[in-house]
């Protein structure tokens, strides 16, 4: 099964021309709990509204945010309703063994790359704007903005 999946991965990369599915960032020097609170505030501030916050695991600590921006949703789903299966956008916060905190979500840049041939310029713009909002929220948590 594993070998078959690796073959499928190769085929996917060859044909869909996409890369990694996940975008991740490491945050150092800020405790996990603080990252969770700061990220929720930063996401809401960017209108990436947190619909639900699910504490998935206690050891290691992991929280998943279910995030949605209806304005973006309107534009994307109107043209490509299938993308609702990736909504609400899931952003996770995971405490690593070395004490750093990992934040990750679907790699929007690679998603757009894989679908570029089919998407309209307006939808691509919305995807990239949403990606920028989330990245800026993470930067806020890091104190880089």
């Amino acid at each position, binding site marked *: *099964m594993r070998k078959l999946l*690796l073959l499928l*991965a190769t*085929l996917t990369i*060859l044909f869909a021309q996409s890369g990694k599915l*996940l975008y991740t960032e490491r945050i150092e020097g800020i405790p996990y709990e603080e990252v969770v609170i700061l990220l929720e505030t930063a996401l809401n501030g960017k209108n990436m509204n947190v619909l639900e916050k699910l504490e998935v*695991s206690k050891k290691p600590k992991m929280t998943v945010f279910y995030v949605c921006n209806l304005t973006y949703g309107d534009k994307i789903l109107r043209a490509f309703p299938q993308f*609702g*299966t990736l909504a609400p956008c899931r952003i996770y916060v995971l405490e690593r063994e070395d004490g750093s905190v990992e934040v990750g979500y679907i790699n929007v840049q690679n998603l757009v790359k894989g679908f570029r041939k089919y998407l309209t310029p307006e939808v691509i713009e919305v995807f990239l704007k949403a990606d920028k909002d989330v990245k800026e929220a993470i930067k806020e948590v890091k104190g880089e903005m």
Partner: protein
Amino acid sequence: MRALVAFLIGAIIALSLFYFIRYYFGNPFRLMFYTVEVKNKNFDQTLEELQKKLNENGLKVIRVLPISKALEARGVKDFMKYSIILACDIPNKEKLLVKAPSLTNLIPCSVAVYDDGKGVKVSAPKEIVFLAEEAKKLTEEEIKLLIDTYRTLRKTIDEVRR
């Protein structure tokens, strides 16, 4: 003569295989989403029956997000009927998600139900792309659990579409 026939058959098989792979893997929509058109049911009936069947088949429904109603409440008037069912709340998900965080996109699963004006459709994500990337991190049992969950999901959708 025999060699020529064998060569031709081989060439036909190779070409068919090539076109099948290109058909399946060449279109990201086919690769990432399972979409079906529902027959003889309207949007509300589909939404209700799908929730019922998902629960019956062990793919516990967690929440339903009425996207079109939320947009309507914000003054958007011409949006299609659209809801997302969050389901597939599988046991021991925490171990899987910690090991392979990209699976947060599969668990819980988001099943989209919508009426695009041409008919009612149901879309679900496909597990294969995520599994292909995360296979190295998972055990055979975990891979099987995910494949079985998504197979049951597609079977459930097929039960509702008829």
